[in-house]
């Protein structure tokens, strides 16, 4: 990681900060979604059971969306072409985006988490800091996936289509609604290759069973490896499409 990574990260953050409407949406949307989730699940026990999975899914969703659209704009506006002709490496660009947008993904995560805990009054076990660290890992995966899949979209419309293609199927087979071992064999097999499966499994273990990060080493390991592989793929597939 070179100093250019941080130059790019700083610019990405500055872009978001200077777009006030986006900032307002980043702050308000998680609250709206968490409120809807909270009011639609009236039974307290069910809400407590569902909230870790909902959190993991929303982190992945928001992170994927904000990164995918941001990166796509970089391509379509021609700034990516300009960057690729400069001394910055493809890895600088991808990791710069990761650092820059991760901050906003984390802000959304924290808002949702604390809103669910203090306003919707969900209860959780385990250490708060460990839950937040694991959420960061899910956020990193979301940003990496958004960066990678933006390479396959030529406009915002196409990018939006990746949400039902990449995110929604994970919601159904990740163990959010039905434990993965109760899924049909094919879907259970597929679920083993999806990051949300490990995100949901890990966050449930932390929040519902009070386990620690050391207890969910497999989930952490898979998510970390997933992030590294997708990040490398994102750098390799980086092309200008202006």
């Amino acid at each position, binding site marked *: 990681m070179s*100093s*250019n990574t941080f*130059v*790019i990260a700083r*610019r990405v953050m*500055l*872009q*978001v900060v*200077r*777009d006030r409407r986006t900032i307002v949406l980043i702050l308000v949307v998680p609250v709206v979604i968490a409120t809807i989730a909270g009011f639609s699940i009236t039974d307290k026990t069910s809400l407590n059971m569902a909230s870790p999975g909902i959190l993991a899914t929303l982190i992945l969703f928001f992170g994927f969306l904000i990164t995918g659209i941001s990166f796509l704009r970089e391509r379509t*506006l*021609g*700034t990516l*072409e*300009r*960057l*690729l*002709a*400069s*001394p*910055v*490496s493809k890895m600088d660009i991808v990791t710069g985006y990761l650092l820059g947008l991760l901050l906003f993904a984390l802000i959304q995560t924290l808002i949702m988490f604390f809103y669910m805990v203090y306003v919707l009054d969900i209860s959780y076990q385990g250490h708060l800091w460990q839950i937040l660290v694991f959420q960061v890992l899910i956020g990193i995966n979301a940003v990496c996936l958004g960066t990678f899949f933006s390479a396959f979209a030529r406009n915002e419309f196409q990018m939006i289509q990746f949400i039902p293609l990449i995110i929604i199927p994970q919601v159904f087979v990740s163990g959010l609604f039905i434990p993965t071992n109760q899924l049909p064999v094919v879907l259970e097999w597929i679920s083993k290759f999806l990051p949300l499966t490990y995100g949901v499994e890990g966050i449930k273990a932390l929040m519902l069973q009070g386990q620690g990060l050391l207890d969910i080493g497999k989930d952490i390991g898979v998510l970390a490896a997933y992030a590294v592989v997708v990040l490398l793929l994102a750098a390799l597939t980086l092309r*200008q499409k*202006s």
Partner: protein
Amino acid sequence: MTKTAIAVNNLAFNYGNLRVIDDMTMQIESGTSYGLLGPNGAGKTTLIRLMVGLLKPAGGSVSSLGKAPTRANAKNIGYMPQLPALYSELSVAQNIDFFGRIYGLKNLKERRQRVDETIKVVDLWEKRNTQIINLSGGMKQRVSLACAIVHQPPLLFLDEPTVGLDPELRVHFWEYFTDLTKAGHTLIISSHTFDDAAHCQKLAFLRLGKVVAQGTPLELCNATGKKNATLEDAFLYFIRQGEVKNNVQ
């Protein structure tokens, strides 16, 4: 002895099955303004992308400042793409500062000074804190130029830099380009207008991915054999010749 800034040898490039650069050869001397003139689809932008290293040749070679155009060599290059290619949420100064940073201007004091100087060069001092989204097309072009020159590169690629500019601004740009070449910078400028081409010290006429002719504007005009021939006459003359002529210079 004059140094060569760009050496293109038997360069070829394909988009799929379509050959868009076909056996191009040219030498561009340091400290000159070199125009790539041709209609849409002639291969101007593709040639510039090959020269800056954005594309890999399908055949032949290209070198910029004696080296293959790689990332390691990119610090010495300035590139202004056809689109303004700016960050619309950021201000004029923030955009220029960002490109200054990634081109190696790490020292804060030096960079600020360079950014301020560059903003004055493109005559946008009053707009330095304005977001790009609130600028006119001509102003965006000026910021785009500023982003390409903030690190004062010896070699500058300008892809259709004057498209969409009003006549006054176009004159201002060309005065600045002339100053840059006098200061020893090499400028590669693509254009499809003969007005722009007349300002360049040397020209290559491009058509369908081939170099049709190369030389100074005067040499190209004289080659037609007509008195008071214009560059337009010269271009048409070489097109009608129907063969590649690289021997004018």
